[in-house]
């Protein structure tokens, strides 16, 4: 027994010096891997797994969808273009009113300033991809009853209930169109300023969007302001709330701040060049 104990101790001693069994020093089980070489000799070069007769033996892999002479499934029915032009349609990623209220409660958004795409993207929690046909945000009505903030917000799409919920709290909502290039700038303004290119002009909406953005019911930015103020009263009566008077509000200036139809940023004109390093603005000389 002595020699057995001696050898087991010896084995344990050896084992202690060896590395642990782990994924890095394992090898596959013998014969668990298929050989990727194809035999060519008398016994290896038989059928190579391709079978004995016909199409299979010749390894004739038919094209996808081909049904050996039948009318293929993909051609059997007439074409119905449900999704015609889907890759060209404008998308508006949703933000719910609850999400917006959380952003305001956790101070990710400053509600004492006008809110636009740049504010939402700068919160770090929302992002916009203009290259993937995203044309801005739509405000959806989830958590509408818990929305209590007084804001001046500019989104790209909003339903009637959402407009009512914002205006009930004494806020202002506006829907506005931005062309893809402007959206690209608004999604990350700091990066744009670092490029050293003057702020471009914002384009007007395309023909199929013009109707939406000139309608006072949608609070479109191209709508007649008088019609909008009239429609605010109509909506207040429809939803049964007293419309707070913006004229008497302490934040009158913030609530009425609006961009020009050609303007990208609040307070900054197109054509200006922002220098973040020297903290200067290059403007056109007025004579």
């Amino acid at each position, binding site marked *: 027994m002595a020699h057995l104990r001696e050898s087991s101790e010896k084995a344990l001693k050896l084992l202690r010096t060896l590395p642990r069994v782990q994924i890095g020093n394992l090898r596959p089980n013998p014969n668990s891997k298929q050989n990727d070489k194809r035999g060519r000799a008398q016994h290896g070069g038989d059928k190579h797994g391709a079978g004995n007769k016909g199409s299979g033996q010749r390894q004739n892999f038919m094209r996808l969808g081909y049904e050996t002479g039948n009318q293929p499934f993909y051609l059997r029915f007439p074409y119905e273009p449900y999704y015609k032009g889907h890759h060209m349609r404008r998308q508006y990623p949703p933000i719910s009113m609850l999400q917006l209220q959380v952003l305001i*409660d*956790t101070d990710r958004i400053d509600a004492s300033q006008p809110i636009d795409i740049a504010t939402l993207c700068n919160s770090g929690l929302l992002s916009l991809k203009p290259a993937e046909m995203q044309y801005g945000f739509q405000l959806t009505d989830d*958590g509408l009853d*818990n929305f209590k903030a007084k804001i001046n917000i500019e989104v790209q799409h909003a339903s009637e209930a959402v407009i009512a919920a914002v205006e009930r709290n004494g806020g202002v909502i506006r829907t506005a169109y931005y*062309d893809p290039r402007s959206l690209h700038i608004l999604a990350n303004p*700091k990066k744009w300023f670092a490029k050293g290119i003057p702020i471009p002009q914002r384009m007007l909406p395309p023909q199929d969007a013009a109707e939406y953005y000139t309608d006072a019911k949608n609070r479109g930015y191209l709508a007649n302001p008088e019609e909008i103020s009239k429609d605010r009263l109509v909506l207040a009566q429809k939803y049964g709330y007293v419309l707070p008077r913006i004229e008497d509000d302490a934040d009158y200036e913030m609530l009425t701040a609006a961009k020009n139809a050609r303007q990208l940023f609040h307070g*900054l004109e197109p054509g200006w060049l922002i220098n*973040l390093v020297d903290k200067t603005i*290059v403007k056109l*000389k007025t004579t």
Partner: protein
Amino acid sequence: MLRHFVRSLHTQPARLSSFRSSQPVQPLEAYPEVEVVHNPPEWKYVERLLPPSTVPEPVAKPTYPSGWQPQRANGDNSSGYFVARTKNHMVPVYLHTRFRGQRRLTVVRRVQGDIWALERDLRSIVEQARNGKLCATRVNELSGQIYIHGDYVDLLREHLKSKGF
């Protein structure tokens, strides 16, 4: 000629442009005169467009209409455990879905202290919601995570918030 016409039709000249079609640099006189404004009054609008470099600390408010609330409990409370908030000041309760939503796991992360006591508490809460039916849980003591079978994210998040976490 036609190419120029087509380009003028496009509302987005930047999309189809390349270095070949861009205008070469003109003599300086061809450009409009500009002035560099130091300390411009509009700089406050630029500052508003710069994102904060860190996640801001939420300022205390009288009410939180969204249902979010700041953390009230300290690390050394009587229950013996602590659930830290995430960097975005949220309660770390998540839903993991596997197999196309067929398996749903509720994950509570960032647990410090007596993780087994928290697991017992959460399990009793879930079993109460399931009318006394048993609930399978798994504890990863090392990483401070508790896995609970089923979707109880809202329930457990509200429970943790009510305890001040």
